[in-house]
């Protein structure tokens, strides 16, 4: 689970850390990814691993367009960064309601699921479900690929510059609107990937998004708001804690997350790797 948490959190971290949009509809993109995969698999028989390649880019474009229209306008209209953070938070609540209810209209409120790679694999005597292993593998691969994209490419550099100081980045010749929209799109892409991977292991419902959003927010705070590496590591840490708590009492895992979250906010709100 840690790998998926990391994916989700990195997506949100891109949107918040760079774009200052605390996107509470993040989980809805995960839900969209999961349901698209379900539809592709059950109706057209397309393997979830292939829909990874389909859902990701589609959601990227959706995210990109949303930022270009909605959030760019809000950014221009807000007088300060703080005011923009507040109004974009509320706007993303609006998005949450819209996406969730469109999904409810399309897919109805039933719980869905499909089975894919249900067989178990044994590694050194320990048994693992094949779909979980594949999901973990992909989550790690995507995270690594993304990490290299961020540190080794020109666009990655521009994103990091924009996260550091948008105004200065703009002066240095970064097309800030384009970079921010790309970040938002990438966030949606990550959410989509996570959704596809989640759909391989768990059942889904159109209102499942908020839970993942909350986990993502907790992870992002844990890793330090704005620190993308922090979110990666935070995701794995929370996933680990989640597994340990679930081992004792499955009902307690969400409570444990909230307790960690609240203590963290009180003691060290800048997170583990915050500036």
């Amino acid at each position, binding site marked *: 689970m840690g790998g998926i948490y990391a994916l989700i959190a990195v997506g949100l971290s891109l949107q918040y850390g760079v774009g200052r949009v605390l996107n509470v509809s993040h989980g809805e993109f995960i839900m969209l990814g999961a349901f698209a995969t379900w539809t592709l698999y059950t109706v057209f028989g397309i393997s979830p691993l292939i829909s990874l390649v389909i859902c990701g880019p589609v959601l990227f474009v959706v995210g990109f367009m949303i930022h270009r229209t909605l959030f760019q306008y809000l950014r221009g209209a807000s007088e300060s960064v703080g005011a923009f*953070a507040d109004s974009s*938070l*509320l706007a993303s609540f609006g998005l949450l309601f819209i996406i969730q209810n469109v999904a409810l209209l399309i897919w109805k409120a039933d719980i869905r699921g499909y089975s894919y790679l249900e067989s178990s694999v044994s590694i050194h005597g320990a048994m693992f479900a094949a779909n979980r292993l594949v999901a973990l593998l992909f989550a790690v691969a995507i995270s690594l690929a993304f990490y290299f994209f961020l540190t080794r490419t020109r666009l990655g550099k521009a994103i990091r510059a924009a996260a550091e100081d948008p105004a200065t980045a703009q002066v240095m010749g970064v097309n800030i609107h384009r970079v921010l929209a790309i970040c938002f799109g990438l966030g949606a892409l990550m959410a989509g990937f996570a959704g596809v991977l989640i759909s391989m292991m768990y059942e889904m419902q159109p209102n499942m998004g908020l839970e993942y959003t909350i986990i993502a927010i907790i992870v992002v705070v844990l890793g330090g708001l704005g620190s993308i590496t922090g979110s990666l590591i935070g995701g794995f840490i929370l996933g680990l804690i989640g597994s340990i708590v679930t081992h004792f009492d499955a009902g*307690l895992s969400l409570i444990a997350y909230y307790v960690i979250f609240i203590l963290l906010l009180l003691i060290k709100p800048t997170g583990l790797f915050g500036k």
Partner: protein
Amino acid sequence: MSIVSVIHKRAFTLGLLFLGLILLATIPLYIPPYPVISLTSIIMYTIITVSWAIFSGPTRYISLASAAFFGVGVYTSAMLGEVFPLPVVIACGGLVSFILALFIGLLTLRLRGMYFIIFTFGVSELIRHFLLWWETNFTGTVGRWVVAADHTTVYYGMVVIFVVLLLTAYLIRRSKYGLALRSIGEYEEAAVHIGINVTVSKTITFAISAFFMGAAGAIMATRWTYIDPSIAFNPLFSFMPVLMAIFGGVGHLYGPILGAALFAYLEEILITKFPYYYMLLFGTILIVVILFLPSGLVGLIGKWRKGGPEG
């Protein structure tokens, strides 16, 4: 504006208010029960929204803990409903929320902006999940029954809370204290420097706003008769007031009232028949308002009245 017209305007507003109150008080006498029940939930939303706006309006701290205070009221009512008469139960519901808010307020003093928003949300969700876990593991049953009250009693209870709330909100806005809150919203450091006790002002106002939410929850529980953590602490109770208040406009006292009344009315009509379309519409209106009406409906009315852009 001349003095005469100011007095005139005030007399007019007061008259309108009085008329509104009489209407609210006598409504159950001449309309059938079902609309009265609908009206009760409209007033309930208005109470939550206005009390949210008491704190978050002037200070610009967006709180997402309304569900926590409301839910605590509901649960207090469920536990004490058999022991005490209704007015005591309502007061207790309010008081417990008040104390919880004092506690949260003291904890969150260092948090600002985004951290405050997510913290309040976290607290409210923590309580919900904890209760759910507690009920499944220790009491053995999820949810409980509440002693029911008949719908006119519930209605009058709501109206009384609403009137007291309006008075409180009005007095806070008018007082030195309200001014202090607004200066915190404008620039907190400056407020500290001119000698405002920021900590006390924020915490007390937060607690007062929680009191009314708790009271509304306590009385609403008697109408629902069956409650469980997912009903009482529904996160929608946290989101709705924010959206309703912003839709109406937080700058004025009547903004949140207008926004909440309109939205709650819409909900009453739509939610049973087309729940998904209602929420869809809700999201769309929210985005449109944020984009084009930053000061809400009240801002729009102000603009239209003055005929100028400065509204």
